[in-house]
């Protein structure tokens, strides 16, 4: 098992570094004001948004035990806090953890 874990860690880090490494190779030839850069910029933001939406809507692990509605409410309130605190990021994140822990205890 121990050898498996070490190998799994190596394989995981290799698979992760691969995308970063290929990204740097491609970046050598891409100018920041080129069309292809603008396209990749859109792709990066949209892929991140897809990933986060997926984590919230189809979560793996403990989050899947929380009702959809509660997840949406927590995200919605956190975004409101973010706006009302003039884009402070600490308040909404701390708040989200506390409110979800409380909600999951009582529902």
């Amino acid at each position, binding site marked *: 098992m*121990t050898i*498996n*874990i*070490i190998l*799994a*860690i190596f*394989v*995981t*880090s*290799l*698979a*992760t*570094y691969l*995308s*970063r*490494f*290929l*990204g*740097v190779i*491609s*970046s050598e030839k891409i100018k*920041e004001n080129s*069309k292809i*850069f*603008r396209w*990749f*910029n*859109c*792709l*990066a*933001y*949209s*892929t*991140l*948004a*897809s*990933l*986060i*939406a997926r*984590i*919230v809507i189809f979560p*793996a*692990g*403990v989050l899947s*035990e*929380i009702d959809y509605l509660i*997840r949406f409410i927590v*995200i919605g309130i956190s*975004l409101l806090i*973010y706006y009302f605190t003039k*884009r402070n*990021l*600490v308040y*909404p*994140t*701390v708040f*989200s*953890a506390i409110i979800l*822990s409380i909600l*999951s205890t009582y529902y």
Partner: protein
Amino acid sequence: MINSEYFFRGFKSIKGLDSPAFALGASFVAIGALLKNLGFSIQESIFSTFLTYALPGSLVMAESLLVGASLVNIFLAVWLVNARLYPMTVSLMPLLMDKSQPRWKYYISCHFIAVSAWLIMKSKHQSINRKYRIDFWIGIGTATWSVAIVSTVIGYLASDYLNKDMMIGLAIVNPVYFMCMLVGAMKTIEVSLSVILGTILGPLFYFLSPEWSILYGGFTAGTIAYFIGELRDN
């Protein structure tokens, strides 16, 4: 070699009101606890965050080990879930490239590309002298990476005291942080459309293919957003 003034300016990004430290810490505390429950030793857990430093990838590795997947399957699953790092790198590194800087800095520091550091660099690069952007980036990366490693250790050691409700609380912090950061980044029509369409299409494509949904959804949403942006400019 590395300009220390810019390095420390970058490093200090984890202080202050837009700090990613709490969100990043919360999710790696959860990873530390998860790895402990999977039977990892503390060294292996540290090693894992040290070498991979990408949250969804570590989660996929943990799930795969749990079901006894082969190494090839782990490689493919992790590559798929972390492939988003490719467009992230391509949309960041050209902003940091400078001819006077040695290449190795770029190939080593690309290890730090993860959502939190990336979002900070994207929002701050214009205020940094181009020549030293890479040093500033290495500073941010070192700081966020250290937070992740220390948090993994804390999570590992605290796992016995973390009950399920607390783990659920930790799990929501990261998506909330990223959601706020992405909404905050919506300053141009292209980025706004990318974020909104990505949020809608990612989950929709999940019904077609759970594994490929992020890449399909992201690719379609980003490409539509790009063309709408181009049409507006012409």
